[in-house]
Structure formats: C-alpha cells, structure tokens
C-alpha cells in the first residue's frame, strides 16, 4: 500500500520535494548539519542582533546558496572560541579599536589577496574609513587590510531635538555650519535639561561616545592631543590636552545633565531615550539618523544633526570611534565561502539596503548616492555630514591591550572622581598607572 502510493512519484518530483525540504531546513536556520543544495559549507558568523536580520539570512540562502549559522556577538564567547582554536568564519568588530589588537596577536586574516581579486570591493571605491581596518605593526591606517567597515559615522557629532528646546524655552539651536565649543555645548545642555522629583525627565545631552576610552580619545583629539604616546606603548592623561578633555568630561558628568557611570541610563544607550522624547541632545553621529527615521514623525521632524564640537582655538577634528564591520579569523574553517558572503554583505544588496536606510555612511563611495534625503531632517543631516567629512581623521589605538581592558580601568577609577571623592590629579595618576600596567602586561604578549 505504501510502496504503491510512492511508486507514481517520478524522479523529478522527488528531487523537487527533497530540495524543498532542504531549503526549508536551511531557511529555518536549523543548526543540525543538514547539507544544503550545492554542498557549500555553512558560514558561522558572529554578529549582533541587527546585523543579519532573518530576511537577510534567508536571502543569503537563496541568492548565494550560503547557509549562515549566526552566533550572537559576545566577546566572552569569541575569546573562548579563539582560545579553543574554533573561531567563527566572520566576526563583528570595531575597526577603530580591535584592529591593532587582533593583528598584533596573529589572529586576523590578511584580506589583501581577497580584495585584490574582488570585482565588487574595488580599492579605489573604498572609503578612507576602511583604513581603520589596516595595521602595519606600527600604526593604524597603513599596511594590509584585515577587515572592512559596514558603515560609519563621525561619532563626536550630535543630534538634537528642536521640540525639547522649545519646551525649555531655548531657541538658539546649534548652527549647521559652525561647530559649538565643548563649553558652549555643555551650557546648552544645562539649559535644556528637565528634572522633576529626583528623576531626570529630559536629559539635556549625552556625551559618552561608543566606549569610555574611545570617547576620551576623541575629545582629546579635539583638544589637539593624543591619549597614546607616539609608539602607542603608553597612555598619558597628564598631557595638557588629555587633561583638558578629562576635566571637561568630569564637568559634564557633575553637571548631571546626561547619563554617565554614576547616573546610568536604564536604557543602556541613547536610542530608546531619544525616541521617548527624553533626550534633547544625543552625542551620536550620522548613523543615529536611521533610528531617528524610525521614530515617531514628531521626533523625526524635530531632529537635526550638528557638527562635532571643538575646543576654542583648536582645529576642527571629527573622528570615527567605531568603523564597525567584520573581520575573518586566521583559523576560520571556511574562508572562501565566508569571503563571498563578506563581499555580498559589504558591496551588494545588504550594503545598498543599509545605505538607503540612513544607518550610517556607506563604506563604498559608489553607494553614497543612495543616502536618504527626502525628509527635512534627512536632507539637513546629509548636508551637515557631507560638510563634516572634510575634518575626518583616523586615530590609532594601541595594539597592546584590548579596548575593554582600558574601559574597565576607566570604569573602576572614575566613579570616585565623578562623585568628587577624588581629585582630578589623583584620577589622572591612577588612570595612567593602571592603564600602563595593563599595557605592560600586553607588551609581553606581542612579539
């Protein structure tokens, strides 16, 4: 009976059915090792939630015939995977902070040969921001490419919500073409903050960057200096520029106009708070516009982008603190398939989708034309952003420690200084001692 009912099924129908079943398995992201159609290896990608939405995973299966096994981006997992010699094929990373560390420890694959053979990611089409993913052993920005940014922003710029200015009765908005000084910015923050019964109902501003140390690196650069010594071997907060940056940041924290270590925002980052109409100015770059666009129409209409602040008498500098993108571990098991996915993600459909969504500036010059400009806030932010590009600069991070180690020191030392229990000088001394101790330990691990 069963045999007979199977008999009429011809070979073509059978193949069709099994292909369908296999396809379904691939699409559902089922982690069993079911081989897919062409027998391509599945690519393990370690990414954050929004990087590879389910539709994109499905698209990759359909268009490229590549199955993606997603592993949630988690530095803890990554470290352990690297330690055990079984890394993912592609890993999310912050070009600005991760590149020197990874390269100095021989864990990142040199992608130059792949770039050389690519018709999609061509050298003359790559935006300069991708230089964050280059390291020659001495400095960032030169040498082989170890990864590529998926999009970028100049992260010291800030967004503001005109409606909240109006609520506070303030009408001098930050100008589009001239940067504010850091002091002016903080004053403005104090004027637009709203407090009620122990709660900050509307934060005046936020200035926390993408990581504590990245933030201080950027402010120090604006003050005309650098946190790291020339050879990237020491941290020094006692230079006049670093000191100026740190003392301004402390002033910001102590003014209690925005989130900080001692006034944490329960939302962890600015996005939700800004969307809830509870933040007048948010220190985030162009990419934040993607989120602004996804907010309620009132917030989108009221939002504007302003140039990165400066220090009086110092040149305009506007850095990128992240350059978030992907890199390939040297021990990745499926490099060639992973590169195909990389190309597609960085230069084809997904890249075009990101560019037109306003989530950051595309990292291929040829995609610039896709940046959105229909809504007034999009038109304004695009104009301000384009003018800002002239001041773009790449800062070098140290190869000796992972950025989270320096962030950890910062998080440990600074709360006391923020509460006023420790003087600025004492804080500088401890930051230098503790960070340089970590650097010294790291030097022993780098040839």
């Amino acid at each position: 009976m069963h045999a007979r009912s199977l008999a009429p099924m011809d070979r073509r129908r059978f193949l069709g059915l099994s292909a369908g079943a296999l396809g379904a398995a691939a699409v559902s992201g089922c982690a069993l090792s079911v081989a897919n159609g062409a027998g391509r290896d599945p690519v393990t990608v370690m990414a954050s939630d929004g990087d590879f939405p389910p539709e994109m995973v499905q698209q990759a299966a359909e268009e490229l015939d590549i199955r993606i096994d997603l592993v949630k981006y988690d530095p803890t997992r990554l470290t352990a995977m690297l330690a055990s010699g079984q890394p993912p094929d592609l890993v999310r990373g912050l070009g600005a902070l991760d590149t020197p560390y990874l390269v100095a420890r021989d864990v990142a694959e040199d992608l130059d040969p792949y770039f050389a053979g690519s018709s999609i990611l061509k050298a003359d089409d790559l935006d300069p921001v991708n230089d964050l993913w280059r390291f020659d052993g001495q400095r960032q920005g030169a040498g082989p490419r170890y990864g590529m940014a998926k999009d970028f922003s100049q992260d010291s710029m800030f967004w503001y919500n005109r409606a909240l200015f109006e609520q506070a009765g303030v009408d001098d908005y930050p100008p589009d073409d001239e940067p504010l000084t850091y002091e002016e910015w903080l004053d403005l923050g104090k004027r637009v903050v709203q407090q009620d019964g122990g709660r900050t109902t509307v934060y005046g501003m936020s200035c926390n960057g993408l990581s504590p140390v990245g933030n201080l690196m950027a402010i120090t650069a604006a003050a005309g200096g650098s946190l790291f010594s020339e050879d990237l071997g020491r941290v020094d907060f006692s230079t006049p520029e670093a000191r100026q940056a740190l003392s301004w940041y402390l002033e910001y924290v102590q003014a209690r106009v925005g989130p900080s270590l001692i006034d944490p925002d329960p939302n962890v980052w600015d996005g939700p708070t800004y969307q809830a109409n509870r933040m007048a100015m948010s220190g985030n770059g162009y990419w934040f516009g993607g989120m602004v666009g996804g907010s309620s129409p009132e917030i989108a209409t009221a939002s504007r982008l302003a140039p990165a602040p400066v220090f009086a008498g110092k040149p305009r500098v506007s850095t990128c603190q992240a350059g978030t993108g992907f890199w390939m571990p040297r021990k990745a098991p499926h490099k060639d398939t992973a590169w195909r996915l990389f190309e597609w993600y960085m230069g084809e459909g997904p890249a075009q989708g990101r560019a037109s969504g306003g989530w950051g500036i595309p990292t291929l010059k040829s995609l610039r034309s896709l940046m959105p400009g229909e809504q007034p806030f999009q038109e304004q932010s695009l104009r301000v952003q384009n003018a800002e590009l002239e001041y773009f600069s790449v800062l070098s991070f140290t190869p000796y420690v992972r950025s989270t180690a320096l962030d950890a020191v910062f998080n440990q030392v600074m709360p006391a200084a923020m509460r006023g229990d420790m003087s600025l000088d004492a804080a500088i001394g401890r930051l230098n001692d503790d960070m340089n101790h970590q650097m010294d330990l790291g030097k022993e691990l780098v040839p």
Partner: protein
Amino acid sequence: MTVEEIRVASDRPARARRASGAAAAPRTSRMTTKRHRAFYMFTAPWLVGFVLLTAFPMGYALWLSFTNFDAVSPHWHFVGLENYREALSDPLTRQSLGRTLLFTLISVPMTMIGGLILAVLVNRPLRARGLFRTLLYLPAVVPPVGTALTFKLVFDTNAGAANGVLDAFGMNAVTWLADPYARYVILMSVLWALGNTMIISLAGLQDIPRELQEASRIDGASAWRSFRSITLPLLSPVLLFQGVTGVIGALQTFMPLLLAADSSPAGTTSVPQDNYMYMINVFAQYFAYGRFGYASALLWILFAVIIAFTALIFKATSGAVFYNVDPEAKK
C-alpha cells in the same frame, strides 16, 4: 499535600540506627571481594566524572594561573607565581574580596536568622499554616534570572514600584540600580529567597521532640529560655549546614551581573562599584581584561578562601556536630 509532610523525612534517623545495628552478620571473603568490586562499580561514574569534569579543569586552571595566557596571543609564557603576587597586592582584587566578605557577613546571618524566625512562626499551630509555608517558600523557587528580571522591574527608576512608593510618600525618586542604593537591592533580592533557610530550619525544628520543649515549659522556663537552651542546641547541625552552604554561596555571588543582565565585558565592569564582587572581578579579568592566567589565579585564591572559611566554621563549631561518614564503621 503541604510542607507539613516534612515528617516523612524526620523519622528516618530512627530507622538508620536500626539498620546499622544489624550490620554484624559474618561474611565470607569471597563476598567481601564481591562487595569491594561492587563498591568501585557503583562509585565509578562519579569518580570518573570528578577526574574529567572537575579535577582536570581545575588543574588546567591551576596551570593557566602560572602563565600570562590571554586566550588570543600565541606568544604567552610562564610567569611563575607572579599572578598570585599581583593578586595579593592588586587593590581591585582586594576591594572586591573585601566587599564580598562584607556581603557574606551580612547576608548569611541575615538569611539564617530571618529564616529561623519564619520557621519558628510557621511551626506553631496556626490556621492555614500549610498555605503560609508554601507562599513564604515560593520566591525561593524562582530561578536567579527570574529574580533579576523581577527586581529590575520593581526597582526601575521610572516605572518601578519602589519609586512609586517613594512618590506616594512625597519623597524624591531614587536611582536604585546605581550606587549607593544598588547594594540594598542585592541584599533584598537575597532576602527574597528566605524560604530556603526557612524550610531547612523548619525541618530541623520538627525533628525536635515536642516533649522536650513541653517539659521545660512545665518546669517554668520562659519561651525564650526554652528556645535558647533546648531548641537552638538541637538545631545546631541544621544551622551549621546553612552557615557553610550560605557562606560558600555568598562568596561566589554572581547576582549583580544578572541584575545588569549583560554578560558582556562592559556589563561586568560597569556594575555599580558597591556590587563589584569577587566573581564579577574574575569574570571581568577573564573577559574584559583578557587575562586568563590572572583570572585563573583569582579562582584558585577564592577556592582557598572557601576552604579556609569552611574549615573555620567547622572548627569554631567543633563538637557541636558532625555526621557519620560510615554507619558501619562506628560499630
């Protein structure tokens, strides 16, 4: 079916005594060999598991603790006792250990005494005491993540009940999950699971023959006196057990990290400073600082501290109680 059924357990010691008393039957040596072999066969799964899943990883951690391994660089090497030397002088480690010890000294007695008081209350003849016992115990069944999520919602600055209460009394709202309040939230979340110590103390209380207490009351002793001179000494093994497990649990507190609900390196290093406990530091050293060698040394130090504490407790209460390792060996 309620907690009332505790008595199921309480008549067991009597049977145990009977059982060990009957252990004197003569045996042939063949039977002895058979018994020996059977013993090894029965205990083998645990022993093999212990060697592979406990001793080996511990040994691996010990070995790592003498290196500067960072899990990424191939250029690591041995550093001798350097990690241990650094740990003893590192203010971060010392402070986190100090905080953890303080937390232990507060939370363990707090839950023991609280649990004992509750146990005494619900051990009295009450209406609906089964219901009371069950309800009081319920929070102890909630998994740590459930507790963390619940407390985050209760102590949320904007939408939490705690600030709602402050509002109702016309007081200013408080950022509960930051210093200096975060430590109280942790203590409260520990107190929430008071049912754990209550249920164990209750089991102990029910093992105490009622006649003893009644006799002392008839002799004219006050309730407090009879509690002190009869109940408490008889309860000491149970309290000792709670003390030891409580200290071990408290020393490895991980709750602050769960409250931060963020196992990323940023999550470990940005917990409020008052809650930066020893295990949080270990996690941070492993994954934020990337110092696998140093963090492994910290684990071994914690291990030593735990052994020392346990020994100390047993020593301080020596004579009070210990249990019988081998019921047959006694005879």
